[in-house]
């Protein structure tokens, strides 16, 4: 009885969608209520794995932005600014508790709206988002201990614009510290993934937060621009592309608004010859194929010491062959759908560039579903620093592999990028890890692991990956005058 005689295909294991509650059409969440936009324009939020619209979302107007900022200002002056920290904390604690109660629903909606696999939204996005709220709720009445001998004060109204790769998690990263520090918030989720932010708005409403403390408005880039440019905003927090980050930086110059930017990345993931190769291969896969590579800190540049290059690549290809691509709601799926048509085009363009540049292309033979936006996990070998695929952020499941010989060489190459968000190091030798981590100009350096997140650990970039830190004690100072 050989293995070939048995059908080894995994049986479908879809997460059910029967229990989720989605409205056909979502209004804007302003002043504690869902209100209609004066503009009356809506757009579809698409499930990228089926290309079907799952709900309609409002395109906010300039007047809506103004309304939202006013509501936040009123709430700041009337309720939030002077509320004792321990009282604020009570409100904030309610949010993650309710998120936990609705964890399954949030995870399913996150997967439907963004193409992210259910395993990740269920085990990473939603629990981490709740953990961020819990963590920062704990700080609300302890700010004076965080900054001894200072009198920390809130900034006022925070304008927050977040990306589509971790919609709910990014909302939590932004809202939780802002509220804990006594600020009120206007948040704009990305246009392709507004739904979990709107579900979060429902939770906030149900949690009975004072009206206007959190406002959530939806729409395209112009709405975000109007929000960060609004004169009555005291703080701007943005996560997204470096191009937009530059634009924001220009727009707020000279206004006195405090800014934090978390932008792109082109992280080096470095494998030394003394690494545990099999673990490193898992780390490479996790580093670049997690969330279809839609991760700003993705390990998209792989550096392998030349002596183990062939072994690593052979094992990596072998591992890639067993990745399961398919419906994001299936519990067996490793690789979900690409978030949007535009993003898929960008990724495909870069793959074409890589091939044209002469890099060696590899992708497992996977049948891609006909409907939806899909990209097989892709590996390029024989890449040099001068290749565009090694320089520019692709934001997709595309890995560019280079080799190196010495420690100093790999440090130089790894730092030879305009970005500096994250890096990974794989070696069994502790001294090498400490050497690398101190030489690496990156906000986060993971040793013998990758893409590990925790609310207590600050996250942020060097150089064109942005500035300011989110998470941990450091995350508080972005929302306080001290």
């Amino acid at each position, binding site marked *: 009885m*050989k*293995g070939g005689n*048995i059908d080894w295909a995994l049986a479908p294991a879809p997460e059910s969608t029967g229990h989720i509650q989605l409205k056909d059409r979502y209004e804007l969440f302003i002043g504690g209520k869902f209100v209609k936009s004066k503009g009356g324009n809506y757009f579809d939020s698409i499930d990228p794995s089926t290309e079907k619209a799952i709900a309609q979302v409002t395109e906010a107007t300039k007047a809506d932005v103004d309304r939202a900022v006013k509501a936040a200002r009123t709430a700041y002056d009337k309720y939030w600014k002077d509320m004792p920290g321990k009282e604020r904390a009570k409100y904030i604690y309610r949010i993650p508790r309710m998120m936990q109660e609705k964890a399954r629903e949030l995870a399913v909606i996150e997967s439907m709206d963004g193409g992210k696999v259910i395993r990740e939204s269920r085990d990473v996005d939603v629990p981490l988002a709740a953990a961020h709220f819990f963590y920062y709720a704990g700080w609300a009445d302890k700010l004076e201990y965080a900054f001894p001998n200072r009198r920390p004060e809130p900034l006022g109204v925070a304008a927050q614009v977040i990306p589509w790769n971790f919609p709910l998690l990014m909302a939590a990263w932004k809202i939780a510290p802002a509220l804990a520090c006594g600020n009120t918030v206007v948040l704009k989720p990305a246009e392709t993934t507004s739904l979990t932010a709107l579900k979060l708005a429902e939770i906030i409403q149900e949690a009975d937060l004072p009206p206007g403390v959190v406002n959530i408005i939806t729409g395209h880039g112009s709405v975000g621009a109007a929000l960060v440019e609004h004169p009555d905003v005291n703080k701007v927090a943005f996560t997204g592309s470096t191009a937009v980050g530059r634009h924001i930086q220009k727009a707020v110059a000279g206004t006195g608004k405090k800014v934090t930017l978390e932008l792109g990345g082109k992280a080096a993931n470095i494998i030394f010859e003394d690494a545990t190769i099999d673990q490193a291969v898992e780390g490479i896969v996790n580093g670049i194929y997690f969330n279809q590579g839609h991760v700003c800190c993705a390990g998209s540049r792989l550096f392998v010491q030349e002596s183990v290059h062939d072994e690593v690549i052979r094992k990596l290809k072998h591992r890639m062959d067993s990745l399961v691509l398919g419906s994001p709601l299936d519990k067996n799926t490793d690789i979900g759908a690409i978030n949007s048509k535009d993003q898929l085009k960008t990724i495909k363009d870069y793959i074409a560039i890589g091939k044209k540049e002469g890099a060696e292309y590899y992708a497992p033979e996977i049948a891609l579903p006909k409907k939806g936006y899909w990209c097989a996990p892709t590996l390029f070998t024989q890449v040099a620093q001068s290749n565009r695929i090694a320089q520019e952020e692709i934001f997709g499941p595309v890995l560019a592999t280079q080799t190196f010989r010495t420690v100093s060489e790999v440090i130089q190459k790894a730092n030879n990028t305009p970005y500096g968000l994250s890096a990974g190091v794989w070696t069994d030798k502790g001294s090498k890890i400490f050497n690398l981590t101190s030489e690496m100009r990156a906000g986060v350096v993971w040793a013998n692991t990758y893409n590990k997140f925790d609310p207590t650990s600050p996250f942020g970039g060097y150089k064109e990956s942005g500035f300011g830190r989110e998470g941990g004690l450091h995350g508080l100072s972005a929302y306080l005058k001290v």
Partner: protein
Amino acid sequence: MVLSMIDLTTLEGMDTEGKVKQLCYKARHLHDATKGIPHVAAVCVYPDMVAIAKNELKGSDIGVASVATAFPSGHSSLELKLDDVRLAVEAGADEVDMVISRGRFHQGDYAYVYDEIAAVKEACGKARLKVILETGELGTFDKVRRASDISIAAGADFIKTSTGKIKPAATMPVTLVMLEAIRDHWFKTGEMVGMKPAGGISNAKLALHYLIMVKETLGDQWLDKDWFRFGASSLANDVLMQIMKQRTGAYQSKDYFSID
């Protein structure tokens, strides 16, 4: 498939002729009440029981495996161990399950461990050699990996996790480390080495987890009794129970499945 990969085992101080005969009957007739049930891969016994088992299994293609080399501790002289192996092989054993000298291994005397395995392999002649690492006594994954590499290099046809006498016996992480050692050898040389997790795999679901791990780490060609075995006796009845559930739609009492 799982059933055909099982090595039914009896390794007790109180093993008797009767017990071995009963086990051999079970090996040939897992569940006669149902048609189309395969028989197991082999029966695993002590060297002095090999002749009895061999006789009982005459006419079937079920193998007789014998433990040897001062099983389970492995503490004896090389000469005695080789005699132990010859005893089994001369009595007709098709497979020999040896234990490595864990004491020597922990002392760092890897050359001794290697030489011993190589000598046993030679003594085996045509019989296939399974090398038991007894991972429960090795302590770390690094050591499991090293012992796997030594065994494979010294000529093991199979590497096997445990004797079944020490807890923990087979676990998925330890098995994965060993499968990776096999895979690396295969990548380098193109030679296949078999794998046998033993002890602690007692239900069908867990067995399926192991098979998936083998398939994903090594590939389809390992999904065969020549290259993968389960050292487990209670597993067979659970698999039978699941098969009956699939065929009849209802779970049956354990009392419907014979225990030998």
